[in-house]
């Protein structure tokens, strides 16, 4: 602990020292092979065209299939691109530790920092620091609280998941029936958004035609999903559909319904886009649809980081620069289109 505290400012001052050195005299960089990337920064965002782009990557520890896929996809994309050197750090579970970890990454003088902040608010200062050092930041999934802290932000559409699910339920149930909502972790933005989108859509489409008979959190984990759903099944004789906030958690909800032998009474939808969920959708039955919140966004973030370092934009866009915000739609996956997206499953 004390060693870490000592190291952080040390690393920081090293990083600043290197940057300052590059700023004073670009010729001195020639002598030091370790600081060639700093020289590239001096020419604005236009890095040299031939050298590899050095990308620092930080994400919280993989305590969930989705988070695991985020890191795996980033690594795979960096390998596939060829001209990207990835220095990745992962495994921390709290924001302070992630901030320390990012400081260490910054000391290695990357061209761009790609990060999935454990908490947007808590990681904003370190992102700000990177930006001030001339290292552009690409944030994934969770927004930083200061608009200047990140050069670009790519995220999924949590409200859209709820909204799409609500519309799907309205269509499938023809605005009639009893619905159960199994939420994620209570009190976090992801859960609030996925819940609000759903209730908004149902209210707007069906007024009071669809009744949400139970709405309980199960913390994104299958065993909690199982026991919460078991209790809800006890309380409700007729359930027509279940909206769950997460595919992994939905596995437990499915088990509860199948164990009670009530799978013909209702259908269920997930969120995220796990491979297991897509296989269930493909097979048909209880698990009818999921809405993508796809971890492939970390691979896109690596591509964006590379373009930012090179001072290029997307080929398909007229703008010469990478957009500062990208929201990936919550694609609806049903039996009809599951073939097309199953490779994206995690």
């Amino acid at each position, binding site marked *: 602990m004390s060693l870490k505290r000592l190291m952080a400012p040390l690393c920081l001052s090293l990083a600043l020292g290197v940057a300052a050195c590059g700023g004073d005299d670009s010729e001195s960089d020639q002598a030091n092979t370790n600081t060639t990337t700093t020289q590239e920064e001096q020419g604005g965002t236009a890095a040299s065209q031939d050298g590899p782009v050095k990308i620092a990557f930080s994400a919280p520890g993989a305590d969930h299939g989705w988070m695991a896929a985020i890191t795996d996809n980033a690594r795979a994309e960096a390998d596939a691109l060829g001209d990207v050197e990835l220095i990745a750090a992962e495994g921390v579970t709290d924001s302070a530790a992630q901030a320390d970890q990012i400081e260490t990454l910054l000391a290695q003088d990357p061209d761009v920092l790609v990060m999935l902040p454990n908490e947007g608010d808590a990681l904003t200062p370190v992102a700000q620091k990177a930006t001030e050092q001339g290292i552009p930041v690409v944030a994934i999934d969770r927004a930083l609280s200061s608009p200047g802290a990140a050069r670009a932000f790519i995220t999924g559409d949590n409200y859209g998941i709820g909204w799409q699910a609500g519309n799907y339920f309205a269509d499938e149930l023809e605005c009639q029936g009893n619905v159960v909502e199994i939420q994620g972790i209570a009190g976090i933005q992801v859960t609030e958004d996925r819940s609000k989108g759903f209730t908004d859509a149902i209210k707007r489409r069906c007024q009071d035609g669809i009744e949400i008979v139970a*709405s309980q959190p199960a913390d994104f984990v*299958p*065993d909690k999903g199982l026991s919460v759903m078991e209790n809800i099944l006890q309380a409700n004789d007729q359930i027509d559909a279940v909206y769950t906030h997460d595919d992994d958690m939905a596995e*437990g909800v499915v088990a509860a319904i199948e164990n009670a032998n009530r799978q013909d009474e209702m259908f269920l939808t997930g969120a995220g886009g796990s491979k297991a969920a897509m296989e269930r959708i493909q097979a048909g039955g209880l698990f009818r649809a999921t809405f993508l919140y796809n971890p492939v966004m970390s691979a896109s973030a690596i591509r964006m980081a590379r373009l930012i370092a090179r001072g290029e934009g997307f080929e398909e866009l007229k703008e010469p620069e990478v957009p500062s915000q990208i929201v990936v739609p919550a694609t609806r996956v049903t039996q009809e289109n599951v073939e097309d997206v199953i490779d994206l499953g995690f």
Partner: protein
Amino acid sequence: MTTAPEAAQKGVGVKAPSRRIELQEYALVAVVALILIVGAILEPGSFLTSDNMLNVVRQASVVGVLAIGMTFVIATGGIDLSVGSMVAAASIAGGQFVDSGSFMFVLGAIGMGVLLGGINAGAIAYGKVVPFIATLAMFTMARGLALWISDKQPISIFNLEGVRWFGTGEILGIPSAVIVFVLVTGLAWVLLNRTKYGRYVIAVGGNREAARIAGINTKRIIFSVYVLSGFCVAIAAILVAGRLSSASPIVGNLYELDAIAAVVIGGTALAGGRATIVGTFLGVITFALIFNLLTLMDLAVEIQQVTKGLIILAAVLIQRRS
């Protein structure tokens, strides 16, 4: 607290249970009865049905088995913070044998549970690591192992009829998980209250030095309770996997807190030297009833959390009075 050193001094012939513990058990019976009455009034159609009551005990069985093992650990004055993570590791270890049948799954789960429990045991009994730290280390290590071995993916055990029987089967209308839980509780009661081993466990927790002087191999006793906890983890892992029809590396989160809370609310002293299996059983049932009733009522989660906290506090206060 006073019984244990006395027991140790008088040797093995002394009965461990005290009057205080009996009173606490009766108090908890009153708490359970109160919840049942309140529930029957608030949710007349769905709460006090035989179906739902079996559902409650079935849900209690996983944490229940863990809490039984935890009772022995806490009786020695120790703690095991790793049981939740170890449940995930044990079920994933079993899942590695998904193609070899249910028996191999069970062996794999037991092997991993006992192995990890044994590492805890060795570190605490012979390595002199404080139980809180040793099992905290295992808490993160076991979760990491589960994610690592499984490549972070759940393993479907849909074809393992034998394992799934533990989650979904029943005998004479009673769910198999309930039978396992009651069986484990009964065996543990005999072990703690009717054997020399049980008296040694209490004696070691009451006053280790006195127990040692009385001729008890205290290290071996302490070693054994963590292995026992690991064995209970394996049973819990089989129940969870059977229920979910899959072995998942992310199950078991914070089970240790539920288990510890049930043990303490049951009347076992956190400092050791005093333990009750019946109390633990009732403690587990109390928590399961509360969770069940609050979900049936579909209360908002924040109200559930406050209510749950108030009930825990009230239950402990009622015990202190009696």
